[in-house]
Structures are given as structure tokens and as C-alpha cells.
């Protein structure tokens, strides 16, 4: 082949359906986790290749290896029959691999074309001086948009564009690198039905030109509509690659979850009592967030919330806690209707929230275990009007860290010197000191090693037994089934069902988490 380096190589009538990209035996470990274990992926030229799996199955990690963000510990990447190594994203782009991330990060106060050609503006040389050639940039952008049938003004400000327009821009940008492989991570997560159709039009056009699209999505209908091949991953391992035509939603779900509940969970002895929290028709004030969520929570009950990334579960609990706005809907706590507009009021209503992002919104890294434990409850440690009763604080912190078995040299150790699991226990201790009735735990075991997980489960089970009501968001199926009394499942901001954990199966929850349409039909019958 003599067209090496030719910019439009991928467009020049390629041999149909030959292998374009091969990832062979890719492994990647992070401290304490094997994120990818000997995963292989074979992408054909001019195909749409869906990559599927539960949250944490390793899809994103694999794609980050392909895009040069992570460096695999083992395995090789072969593009066009030649092994390549990718040290950074720049190299990936040079090899013709582009990625459109789920969260788009354009430069808002610049024009569309400046965003597209960022870092490689066309220039004209005037001796030593280089001047940006705006005319050429405009022409190139117009040609690019015409080719992709994107209706967008190259000189519009990105600031003014809708998400779907920005996405079109990002796709054009990816194509402008003369990419052979374009990775799209959840590209439809913030698009409406018509916008999805437009996206599919662009994808089909790219496919006919020989570009391979790797398409990450949780949405079954989309996958079955657009994909040629489907690769399914589970727990960092490859399950298999199948022609999309041979798959059904049921088969995909089965292969995505297909594992037994091998994790151990503590014996639960909680007995749910009267209703303490009732939520009716709760709708977020934010755009494209959750809507019309209703449920009840009983005393001493563990209510799991399941769903995939983008189901807006965190948004729901953060709204309950007053961190986000609510447009409509009512909340009753202990039979009294209540409005909570900030965490201070939530605390007064005896709610507690353990957030999903421990580093971002949980711990105070520069403070000690002592300070981290007391911070939500300092008002109770005042002696007189202003001074803190340190001795009482020390005693209470000591009692709680012993009860929760926090492993720390002393309570004056900086919290950031503890392991993730112990940090999590400190935050649990922080909230227990406020004596809450309702504890909301958002992914309580995320990033925690297996041993510590069990301890957290034991703590949760014990709290429920002592009459605390628990809401637990979890993306881990076994955890949801093993810990919850009932499981509320959400899909794309909508509640798709509440199931009794005893009768639930992984397949049933995955079905609810992926297709609210099915649920609507089932209820109608």
C-alpha cells in the first residue's frame, strides 16, 4: 500500500469489512483493581461497533487505552495491520483515532470553527510572522459541514449553541482529523429523539466512507438500530463479540449481568416499620434531569436505587437534601409535609447524605479525623455560646470510630492519610453524630476494597436494624440485591419500577434500568 499518510485514506473505497483495528489482550490495573483483564476487540472497517457492559465493566477504561489517556499494562493495539503505541491523545489523533467524550468540553467563548481547528489553525507565513488564515479556516469548516450535512454556522459562538449542535461540532472536529476510528461515549445521553436521528444519519454517512465507529451506550434500542457488531464486557473481561443482527435485548442483558451473587453480605435483621418519608411526583428544576418520582421509605428499611449512568439517581437524592432545586412534587417526613431548600434544613429534618464523590464533596483532606467527624455537628458541642467542648468531642469521636472500626493511628491524623474505606467510615461517623432518621448513601462502597466493603455493608445492616431508614444508590447489582429490602429503579430520569429485593433478579433490574417503555407496557396491562 502506498497511500500511507494520505489524509483521506479511510475514505478511498476500502476493502469492505476487513479488520481495521485490533486490540489484543489488553490489561490494565489500578491500585487494588484489575480494570481490564486480557480484553480483545476487533473492529471492522466501515462498521458501527457497540461496546456494552454494566457500569464499571471496563468500557471507558478500554477506550481510554485506545485514545492514549491510559497506558495498558499489557497487550497490543494494531491499526491497519501495524502495531502502534499511544503515549498521549495527540498520538492517537495522529494515527486517526478520535474520541467524543460523554461530557463535552468546548471552549464556550470562541466560534465553532475556532473550536474545530484549535491547536492547528491554518496560517499564512509573512516572513517570520505567522498570521491565522481565517478565510481558509472558514472554507475548510464549510466544506466539512457540507460533507457531513451539518447545518451550523462556522462563525457562531459555541456559547449560544444547544448540546446537540455542540455535539455535531465535536463530530465534525473528530472527522476533521481524518479519523479512521471515532469513539463515541454515550453520545445520545443529552439528545432528543430527532437529534438522535440526525446523529445516526451522520454515523451512517461516516460508515459508508469506511470510518469505524465505536459506540458506547446503554440504550438497547439504539444499539440494535445502529450497530453492526456488539462487544459485551463484564467485570473488566471480554464476554464476547456478536453480530448485532443475532442479538435481542434479553440476550444482551443476560450477557451483561450473567454472574452469580458470589459476594458475601451480612445477615440482615432489620424489620421495616411505619413510613417515615413519602415522596410524590418529584420533578427536578434542572433541564433533562429526573421527573415524576414517587416512593415511600419505611423506618428501618433499606431502599436501594438502581440504574445506569445518567439515570439521574444522584440528582434525585441531592434534591431531597436541598442541594438541587425541585420544580414540582411533595415530600412528607414523619407525616409532615416539608420543603427542604438547603442542607442545613435537611439536617434539621434529620436527613443525612453521604455523597458519591468522596474527595470532591465528602472529606476535608487538610483536616484531621476529629475535625472531619465533628464538622456537620459542631452546634452540639458548644459549651456556653461560642466555645467548643473539645473533651466531649474527642470522647464522641472516639466512641464512633471504635464502633465503625475506623483504622487510624489517632483521631488527630489527617483524613487523607487513611484508606478510602476508612475515609468513608469517618463520613458515616460524621453523619451518625447528627443522629439522623434517614441516611442517604450515594454509592457508599465506590472505590473501596473488598474487605472494607463488607464492613460498610455490616454497618448499613446494623443501622437499619437500629431503626434508621436507609436510601442506598448503587451501581453494583449484587450490592443492590444483597443489601436492599426494596429496589427503586430509574432510567433516564424516570422511575421505571420498585421491586421487592427478594423477588428481584439482576435481569429484571437491568431490564427496568434500560427500558422504561417495557415497564410502561407491563403496568398498562
Amino acid at each position: 500500500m502506498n497511500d500511507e499518510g494520505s489524509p483521506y485514506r479511510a475514505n478511498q473505497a476500502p476493502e469492505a469489512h476487513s479488520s481495521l483495528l485490533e486490540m489484543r489482550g489488553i490489561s490494565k490495573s489500578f491500585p487494588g483493581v484489575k480494570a481490564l483483564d486480557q480484553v480483545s476487540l476487533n473492529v471492522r472497517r466501515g462498521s458501527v461497533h457497540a461496546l456494552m457492559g454494566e457500569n464499571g465493566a471496563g468500557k471507558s477504561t478500554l477506550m481510554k487505552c485506545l485514545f492514549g489517556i491510559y497506558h495498558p499494562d499489557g497487550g497490543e493495539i494494531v491499526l491497519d495491520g501495524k502495531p502502534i503505541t499511544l503515549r498521549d491523545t495527540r498520538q492517537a489523533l495522529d494515527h486517526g483515532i478520535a474520541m467524543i467524550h460523554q461530557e463535552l468540553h468546548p471552549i464556550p467563548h470562541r466560534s465553532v470553527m475556532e473550536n474545530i481547528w484549535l491547536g492547528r489553525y491554518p496560517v499564512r507565513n509573512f516572513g517570520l510572522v505567522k498570521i491565522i488564515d481565517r478565510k481558509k479556516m472558514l472554507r475548510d469548516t464549510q466544506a466539512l459541514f457540507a460533507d457531513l450535512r451539518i447545518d451550523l454556522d462556522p462563525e457562531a459562538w459555541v456559547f449560544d449553541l444547544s448540546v446537540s449542535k455542540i455535539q455535531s461540532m465535536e463530530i465534525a472536529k473528530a472527522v476533521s482529523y481524518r479519523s479512521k476510528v471515532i469513539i463515541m461515549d454515550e453520545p445520545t445521553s443529552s439528545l432528543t429523539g430527532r437529534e438522535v436521528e440526525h446523529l445516526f444519519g451522520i454515523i451512517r454517512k461516516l460508515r459508508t466512507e469506511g470510518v469505524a465507529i465505536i459506540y458506547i451506550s446503554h440504550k438497547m434500542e439504539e444499539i440494535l438500530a445502529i450497530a453492526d457488531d456488539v462487544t459485551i464486557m463484564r467485570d473488566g473481561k471480554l464476554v464476547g463479540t456478536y453480530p448485532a443482527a443475532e442479538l435481542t435485548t434479553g440476550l444482551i442483558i443476560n450477557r451483561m449481568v450473567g454472574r452469580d451473587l458470589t459476594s458475601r453480605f451480612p445477615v440482615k435483621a432489620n424489620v421495616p416499620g411505619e413510613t417515615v418519608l413519602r415522596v410524590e411526583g418529584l420533578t427536578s428544576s434542572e433541564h433533562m434531569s429526573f421527573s415524576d418520582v414517587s416512593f415511600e421509605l419505611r423506618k428501618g428499611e433499606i431502599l436501594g436505587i438502581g440504574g445506569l449512568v445518567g439515570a439521574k439517581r444522584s440528582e434525585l437524592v441531592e434534591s431531597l437534601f436541598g442541594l438541587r432545586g425541585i420544580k414540582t412534587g411533595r415530600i412528607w417526613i414523619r407525616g409532615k409535609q416539608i420543603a427542604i431548600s438547603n442542607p442545613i434544613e435537611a439536617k434539621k429534618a434529620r436527613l443525612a447524605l453521604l455523597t458519591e464523590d468522596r474527595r470532591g464533596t465528602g472529606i476535608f483532606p487538610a483536616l484531621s479525623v476529629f475535625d472531619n467527624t465533628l464538622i456537620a455537628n459542631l452546634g452540639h458541642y458548644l459549651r456556653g455560646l461560642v466555645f467548643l467542648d473539645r473533651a466531649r468531642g474527642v470522647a464522641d469521636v472516639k466512641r464512633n470510630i471504635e464502633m465503625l472500626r475506623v483504622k487510624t493511628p489517632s483521631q488527630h491524623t489527617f483524613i487523607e492519610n487513611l484508606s478510602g474505606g476508612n475515609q468513608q467510615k469517618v463520613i458515616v461517623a460524621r453523619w451518625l453524630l447528627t443522629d439522623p432518621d434517614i441516611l442517604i448513601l450515594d454509592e457508599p462502597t465506590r472505590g473501596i476494597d473488598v474487605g472494607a466493603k463488607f464492613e460498610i455493608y455490616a454497618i448499613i445492616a446494623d443501622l437499619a436494624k437500629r431503626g434508621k431508614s436507609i436510601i442506598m444508590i448503587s451501581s453494583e447489582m449484587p450490592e443492590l440485591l444483597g443489601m436492599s429490602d426494596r429496589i427503586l429503579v430509574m432510567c433516564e430520569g424516570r422511575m421505571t419500577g420498585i421491586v421487592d429485593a427478594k423477588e428481584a433478579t439482576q435481569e429484571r433490574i437491568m431490564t427496568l434500568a434500560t427500558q422504561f417503555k417495557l415497564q410502561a407496557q407491563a403496568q398498562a396491562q
Partner: protein
Amino acid sequence: MTKLTTARMKELASKHAIVLVLAGLVLFTGLFESSFFSTDNLGNILRISSIRIIIALGVGGVLITRGTDLSAGHTAGLCACIAASLMQRADYATKMFPHLPYLPVVVAIAAALAVGLLVGLFNGLVVAFLRVPPFITTLGTMVIVMGVAGLYVDRPPQGAIPIGGLRDDFTSLGTGSWGPFPTVIVIAAMMIFLYWLMLNWMRLGKNTYAIGGNPEAAKVSGVNVSWNLVIVYMLGGVSYAVAGVLLAARSGGATNNYGNMYELDAIAAAVIGGVSTAGGIGTVSGMLTGVLIFQVMDNGLSSLGVSPYWQLIAKGIIIISAVAIDIRKYNSRK
């Protein structure tokens, strides 16, 4: 007693590096300039440091919240003018308010503190509720305060007049002694103690560290972030007012230029003393050490006959190096 192993000594050294630097500086200067250790000279260093530490405490508190306060110096200057204008001798020729009756010293102090409090309140409200970045907020406030101070002392057609002829009962705040201790040092010690109490033993202090350390987590924990910020800025304003009163009392007068650039010295001293500009970290003892280091340096280098211009260059280099080291310390813990 704990055995002093090498590792432990290393740990202690890195923990108290800044104190060691101060000790080294003192010894070094003392070796080359024998008069350094005279009671007069040491007393002088402490007296000058007194006013600076009071401003540094105010600024330091704000720095811990991830903020900054550029209005500190000029607020001190405005408060100095206000206190001084109320404390001029009846027989002084160019009295600002010729018909002003005899006022107790307390009134002048109260007026100055009230003005400082208001400036701080303004800063706090703008930062906490309008969400204007602290750097910009206090830059604006600084310029406004400069204008207000100018208007206050401006007497057209003569223009701005220096305020002189202050009463002895007022100036004794700056020059007198309580028992064996100079009054300024006693007042500075009181302010140091109050800030220490606030930061270590009060809810306000704990919340201040929490807000600076992780504002999002503080909000989730139900800390009243906005009002805590307002109070910290107000305390800052009060500190600058105290410093302003002492400035006027010590020099026996005031002009609208008083306090110029003091905020930069305060920020530099706090940062040298280990207050993190990224917020959430800082101690009163660190701020005190930072102030003393600059003062000993000033004093030592001057008595060694080093040009004041070289002194400025040295100071600048030290500020940048200290933060460069501080940032590395922080990164290594990540």
C-alpha cells in the same frame, strides 16, 4: 522522653522549618551586628511587628477561606484618619473639626472599629452573596476606601491635610506601656490570642478551615458557608481598624496614605508562615513567625547597611520561594 532519631528530627525540621529559618536569621544577624540583641532593638522589632501581625491575622483568616483581602492596608489607613481626627488637641492650629468637643478615647476607637467592621461586612456580603471573586471584590473595596479616605481628609482649597497634634492620652496607646510591656505589644498579644481562640476553639474557626479546605463538602455538611465568610471578612475589617488606631497613636498623626501596601506585607507574611493560598491551611503561630521573619530581615539587613532596594529584591524572592515550596509540599501529599 521521645528519642530523637534522625527520622524524627527530619520530621520535626520539616514541620517547623519556618521557625528554624527565623532562628537562623536571628542568630545570623546577631553574629554580624552585636547591637541586634540589645533590648532596645528587640523591643523595636516587636513594636513594629505588633501592628503588622494584627493586619496579618485579619488577612490570614480570609486567606484560610480561599479568599484574599487587598483592602486591608487602606482600611487600616482610613481607620487611622478617623481615630486621629477625633483625637486632636483643642489648641492644634489646623484641627480637622474645629468645634469638636472633647471626646473620650473610647469614642475614637469605637468609631474606627465601626468603620473597619462596615468595610469587612461589605467585602463579605459581596464575596458570599454576589459571588464576586475575593481578589476583585477587595481590589474594588481598596480603591473605594482610598477614595473615601481622601475625601475625608480633603479640605479644599488647601487639599488633603495631614492630621496632627494628637492628644497624649490617645498617643499613649502607641507609645506607652502597661507595666513593663509596651501597650502595642499587649494589644497585639490580645489579638493573637483572640484569633487563636477563634480558629481553634470556636465553631466559626472550624467552619473557616472546612470552607477553605473543601467548600462543596462544607455545604453538604450543612455549614452555613455564606455567613461564615461574611463574619471572617468582618473580623478582618475589625483587625485592620485596630491596626489603624495603633498606627495613628504611635506616629501621633495620620494621612490618607497610611497603610499603603500593608496588605501585601500581610499576605506575604501569612504565606511565608505556611498559610496556604489554596485555602484550608494556616495557623496563628505561622502568621506570627512570618511577620517576625520579615521584620528581622528588614532590621538586620538595614543595620548591615544593605541597600533598601536589594532588601526589596530579597523579599520578593523569599515570597516566591516560600510558595513554590509550599505547593510542592501540598502536591506530594496528593
